[in-house]
Structures are given as C-alpha cells and as structure tokens.
C-alpha cells in the first residue's frame, strides 16, 4: 500500500483485489468499498492512510459484535457439539479445545460421535490418551445419537466440567445427515435442557464462498453458537467469516493454527483484520 496520498480509483481497485483474494466475496467487498466511498464523500476520511484505518475499524467492529468467548454452564457439565463438513478439522479442533480446558484445570470428557468413517474413533482415542482424559465410544457403525446420550450420561455421573462431542464429517447438502445432526442435538437437549451449550461449526479457512452455504444449512439443522476457523496457519485468510457474521450473526470464537493440540487461539478480531488486509 502507498500510504499518505489522496484516495483514487487505482487504490480502491487494489483494495478490492486484496479483499477478493482473501475470500471476502464479491458482495461483501462491494459493500465495504461503497461504505469507504461514501465516508470519503462525507469527508470523514480524506487521506489514504485514513482509509485503511477506517476499514480496519469497520471490520473489527463487525466481527466483535456478538460475544466471542465460549459460554460455560454454571451448574453442571458444559456440552459442546462439534460439527462441520468432511475434513474441516473437527476431530483435531476437539483435541485443541480439550487441551485448552485441561490447562484451566477443568475435567474434560470426549464423546466419539463419528461412528462412520474409517479409524475415526481410533483417531479421537489417541488424542484423549495424549491429553490424559476419558472418552466415551461405541463400536463403528453404531448410532451417533446413542454415543452422545451415553457421553452426557457419563459426564453427569463423573461430574465432568466439559463434554465435547465429535461428529462425522457431512455435507450440508446431505439431507439425511442433517437430520441425523438434529437427532443428536435433540438427544442432548433431552438429557440436559440447556444442552448443547455450544455448537461449534468447524470451517476450513481454505474454503471459498461455499462456507456461507455451509453455515446456512448447518445452522438450519442445529443453531450454531460459534465458528472455529481452522487451518489459518496456511495462506488462506478466511474472509468468508465476514459474510457469515453479516448474514447469519454467527461469531468466530477460535482459530486453528496448526496440527498440534496447542495450536489454537481465541479469536482476536484485531489480529484477524490486520492479517486479512496484510
């Protein structure tokens, strides 16, 4: 960026290109550029260096509207349901969340709700072992809702602080699998009226505009309380979360920065916006 000169068409085009390349999407980019142009007309910003500040403040504000932290249950285990499309990083993100809570001296239990994919239960089991926590699992092919039920049952009897439930990857376009999610959600609700206290959608930061559709259809099946944006250690910027916040009012709560269980951070809108426009 060449800072410190008057706003001009070339500058705006460059900004537009950056936003699109960051997967912000065409509509949201247009909206932002128009907001900049009208602020410029209203003389709120006169210089180029003001533009970037104005834009960053605008974006930061949008992304911090709703609470970005996890809402914990005050009396009883907090039930966290983890969902998302195939390969988005659900199982690994659960390990990260579990590790995060164990560091806070919380008692964590895992529910191996992916009873479909090859070695899915084994994968989560290895993580549970590494972190030093318990896991509730059934055989491959069993009903995931039954696993969820048993997991919460175990959390109640063992007085766990946190119970995190893994689910099989699924496409938002697979109606029967969306129904399966609803069933899992309802089973959790039956066991503990407020459950699931958090439903986290794992979104792969490398995904493009389809992420918005994913968020729409997943939240139609189970209301989503937050996004865990994984694989942000790559070169993708994850700009789609802007549109998701705008259209669906779903906040980002965590980001994934690698493959180890320490590689997670709480969402920081300022850092995110800086990286988006870097």
């Amino acid at each position, binding site marked *: 960026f060449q800072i410190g000169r008057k706003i001009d068409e070339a500058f705006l085009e460059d900004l537009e290109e950056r936003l699109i390349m960051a997967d912000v999407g065409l509509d949201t980019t247009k909206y932002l550029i128009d907001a900049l142009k009208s602020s410029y007309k209203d003389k709120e910003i006169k210089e180029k260096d003001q533009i970037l500040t104005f834009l960053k403040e605008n974006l930061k504000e949008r992304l911090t509207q709703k609470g970005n932290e996890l809402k914990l249950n005050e009396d009883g285990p907090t039930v966290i349901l983890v969902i998302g*499309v195939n390969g988005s990083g659900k199982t690994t993100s659960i390990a990260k969340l579990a590790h995060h809570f164990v560091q806070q001296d919380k008692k964590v239990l895992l529910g191996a709700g992916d009873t479909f994919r*090859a070695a899915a239960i084994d994968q989560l089991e290895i993580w549970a072992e590494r972190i030093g926590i318990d896991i509730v699992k059934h055989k491959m092919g069993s009903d995931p809702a039954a696993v969820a039920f048993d997991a919460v049952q175990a959390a109640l009897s063992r007085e766990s602080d946190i119970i995190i439930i893994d689910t099989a990857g699924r496409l938002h376009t697979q109606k029967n699998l969306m129904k399966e999610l609803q069933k899992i959600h309802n089973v959790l609700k039956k066991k503990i009226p407020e459950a699931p206290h958090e439903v986290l959608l794992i979104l792969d930061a*490398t995904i*493009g*505009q389809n992420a918005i559709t994913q968020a729409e259809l997943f939240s139609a099946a189970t209301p989503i309380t937050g996004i865990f944006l994984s*694989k942000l250690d790559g*070169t993708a910027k994850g700009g789609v979360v802007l549109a998701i916040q705008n259209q669906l009012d779903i906040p980002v709560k965590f980001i994934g920065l690698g493959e180890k269980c320490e590689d997670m951070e709480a969402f920081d809108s300022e850092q995110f916006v800086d990286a988006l426009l870097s």
Partner: protein
Amino acid sequence: TLSNKFYDIKNNFFSSGKINEKNIQDGIKAIEEALINADVNFRVVKGLVKRVKEKALGEELIKSVKPGDQFVQIVHYELVELMKSDDEERLPITKDLTVIMMVGLQGSGKTTTCGKLARYLIKKGHRPLLVAADTQRPAAIEQLKVLGKTLGEQISEERGEDFEVPVYSAPQDPPPKICKDAIPIAKENNNDIVILDTAGRLHIDDALMDELLSIRKKTKPDHVFFVMDSMTGQNAFDSAKIFNEQINIDGVVLTKLDSDAKGGAALSIKEVTGKPVKFVGVGEKLDALEEFHADRMANRILG
C-alpha cells in the same frame, strides 16, 4: 444463480440485437462476477475474460444471429478449452510396476482417494499395494488399513473369491524410507501398482515439502496426483502453484464434488499449473470416483 445471469446476459445485454463495446462490457462484467462467486481465482478470471472479450469483439460475434447465445457459447468454450486434456486414458498403466503418489493440503481427501483409486484400478485388472506413509496424523495408518480391508471384502464379495488389498506400513520409519521400501515389497508380493498415501501438509512448510521431494526422488513415481478439495477458495491458486513448482505434479483429483460447491478451483489449478484434473471424488464410499470431464465442470462452474 448463474443460469439466471446467463439469461440476463442473453436477454438484457444483447436484446437490442446490436453488438457493441458497451454490451460486451456488460456481459464481461457479469461473467467476471459469476466466476469470482464460483471461487475462480481473481487473477485467472482477469486473464479469462480478456480472452473472451477479444473473441467476442472479433468477427464471430458480430455476424451471429443470436449474439447473446453466441456470447455464452464463447465463455463456455473458453472454460472447456482451459480445462480439457487430450488424454483419453486418465491413468495409463504401461509398466510392470507403477508408482502413484498422492499429495495435498490437510483434509483434502488423499487417504480416501487412495482407496478409491485402488478400487478403480482393481476393476481394470490390477493388483495395488497401499502404502501408509503418513506417520504423523493419529490413526492415519489404521485408516488406510481399514480402507484396504473394506475394499478387499467388497471385491471378494463381487468376484466370489478372496481378493486382498495389502497395506504396507512401518510407523517407526521416516516416510521417504517407507515409500522406498514398499517397492521391492510390491514386486515380491506380485502387486503391479503402488499407491503412496502421504500426510497432508502446507505448501509453505519447507521441511515437509522437502520430504515430498525426497519421496519423489526415492520412488520415481509414474503419476503424482495433487488432491484438492473442490470447495477451496482463492487459495487454490497459490497452493497448486507451489506444489507443482516444488514437486512437479502430473494430475489433479478434485474431491467432494458431491457438494454444491461450484468448484472454480478447477480452473485456477489448470491455469496456474497446466496440469489436468483427471478424476473427481463424488462421495465417501470407495466407488465414489469418476473420470473428469471438462464440459461437465464448465457447466457446473457456470451454474
């Protein structure tokens, strides 16, 4: 939707029946928007619409009776031209022992595709050996073993006689050694294909990209497939570019096309690497692999 856009293009922009810079520019803008929304990389879109504009302004469009139809046809044609490859055979097997190497970013579908490719090749009369060279991801080896076992059972059932899909693993060895050791094992075991499943990695991870290069040097693969998630956004361009620059891929498998993602990444990858998409993944089961067809992909991207 995009088909609405095309309807608009045909009916609004070219409804006057006259062709001029203005309505071609409107059509171009609509195409640009459609392609960006379909996750085609910004840079690729710019190059593509430039070619469309040149063609549209040329003799062809001016003379045609239905200019709107002609314009859409030009766009479709350019997309197909870009993505098609002249290979009839998607995966030519010509040697006594063929090595296939699967690479890509985390979670793109490599391990599952190894199983699918094994099934595809078994149906063509081959005997593949699966190699579990991902020693990093928890239960990655187990995952490939389960797939091998499941596939063996499926084929045995279909053929009415025992068929095994062996999986070679050596969790204590580094991946390049595992891959290298698999080759004499395949020969010994009378397997004519070796499929190497590698760990997902970032194109910006130098150490892991070097590891891939080391595997390549040690095994001299006949086919290196870059496995990419079809929902990938703008990032498809950079990751494909760097994977290709560093280890020279031969072809691409685009996965999860059973979703409603437009798959614009397919265009970006071909444009930046010149390497064709050979197969597409259309589901989680082992038979969910199809050969890539450029015209079908063009239709999908254009809505």
